């Protein structure tokens, strides 16, 4: 009983920490100033550097992480985790490559607001909200794929803030993308281990609803933060 409470409290604290107490540069959610200088100055292929930047972006990108926590919240088997994460990966890889190579410029605030909304959506889904309201369960695989597309645009806008050298562009973007997958894998492994442990406790289902409510609140905060940013900078 005691450990359930501790587990719940730990999850709570983790989400609140993610949303509020990350250092400003992480909260700003961009590639940091020094990294930016590197990206701009870089000429030609720099596989390792872009791998690292992609991985770093994902591990410190709390919005992508919150969404993935929502996605794997009720996935018990590693096989399913891999399936859903693959769908998410396909989605964001497509738009990352299309966005940067095709020069599609989406507004970063709007994209980030949609990413925040994806957290709200997934949390609501986990709360069985759609079953209750509409009597049907929307296809979770399609939803992950679609939101993956938006997350990819988010990644693209981060790279597009810099003038990327045409020299070695494809190699560098692919490296960034692979780095994103590595970072995602590392972060997800940690989350999956944590969730798996929590599930062995009896309190998991009881607290699942409340935890997803909290996840939803985190999503709403992200939406508000980005919408306000959009309005302020117009």
């Amino acid at each position: 009983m005691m450990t359930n409470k501790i587990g719940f409290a730990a999850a709570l604290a983790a989400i609140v920490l993610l949303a509020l107490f990350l250092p400003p540069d992480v909260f700003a959610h961009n590639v940091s100033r020094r990294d930016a200088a590197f990206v701009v100055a870089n000429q030609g292929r720099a596989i390792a550097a872009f791998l690292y930047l992609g991985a770093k972006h994902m591990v410190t990108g709390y919005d992508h992480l919150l969404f993935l926590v929502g996605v794997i919240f009720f996935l018990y088997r590693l096989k399913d985790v891999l399936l859903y994460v693959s769908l998410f990966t396909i989605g964001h890889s497509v738009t990352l490559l299309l966005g940067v190579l095709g020069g599609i410029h989406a507004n970063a605030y709007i994209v980030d607001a949609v990413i925040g909304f994806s957290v709200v959506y997934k949390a609501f889904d986990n709360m069985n909200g759609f079953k209750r309201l509409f009597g049907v369960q929307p296809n979770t695989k399609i939803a992950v794929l679609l939101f993956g597309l938006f997350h990819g645009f988010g990644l693209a806008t981060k790279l597009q803030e810099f003038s990327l050298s045409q020299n070695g562009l494809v190699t560098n973007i692919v490296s960034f993308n692979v780095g994103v997958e590595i970072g995602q894998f590392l972060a997800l492994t940690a989350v999956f281990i944590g969730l798996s442990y929590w599930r062995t406790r009896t309190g998991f289902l009881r607290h699942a609803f409340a935890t997803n409510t909290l996840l939803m609140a985190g999503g709403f905060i992200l939406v508000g933060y980005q919408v306000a940013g959009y309005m302020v900078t117009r």
Partner: protein
Amino acid sequence: MSTQWTVVPQAEVPSLKRLLTATGIALAVAVAILILFVLPAEYGIDPLGTGRGLHLTDLASASDQPRKPAAAPAAPAGASETAPEVVTSINPVLVPSPTGDAPTMKNTFIAQRRPFQFDSREVTLAPGEGMEIKYNMRKGAGLTYSWTASATLFYEFHGEPDVKPAGREGTDYFESYDLDDKKGKAEAHGTFLAPSTGIHGWFWENKSDKPVNLKLVSAGFYDWIMQNRKDKHTALKPMDAYALPGHPKVPDEVLK
């Protein structure tokens, strides 16, 4: 049905009341946190005055102050390799005219190896907001600029040399060229010759309680633009003056 096992059913589908209550709570908590903390700290928007009370709004303006460039855009090593410094010394000399006319300036011509860049931007500074735009220039590179604002802004035109003076290594050392933090101005125009290789530009702060619109145009020899806004340090790409639309079609207009 394999999904029975893959997506393990949760306890139960909640009652409508429970669902709506939870969603409402999530929304209310989010709105409260946004209004109480996030908006004041991030954007200086402070409808209830909680940000001022908790000094969170300081964060919104302070975080945009010139910052320790331990992680400065210290012109990445690669940059200087690809484009070595052209100028080693700048010694303009004023030569008096023998006929008593205005003096002439010698040694003011500094050749550059690449075309100049062009930059034109417009931003709105929220009440209390501060921001920076700086150009990455090499020593001796010139800049012609104009900025105009819809209302008074406090500002400091300054530069951060890549190489700090002896004894100041690793500090946030910067050189101030023009500071107005008392009365402020709504516009400034000038030409500038970079005294050092580094980033050179402005910190503006809107100390009024209304948004202020700022327009900045410049042309000069810089590689990229550093924008420091809302705690985001972003390296921006300059515009290519040759690529401006209509460039070859400007008609000859006779000024009367």
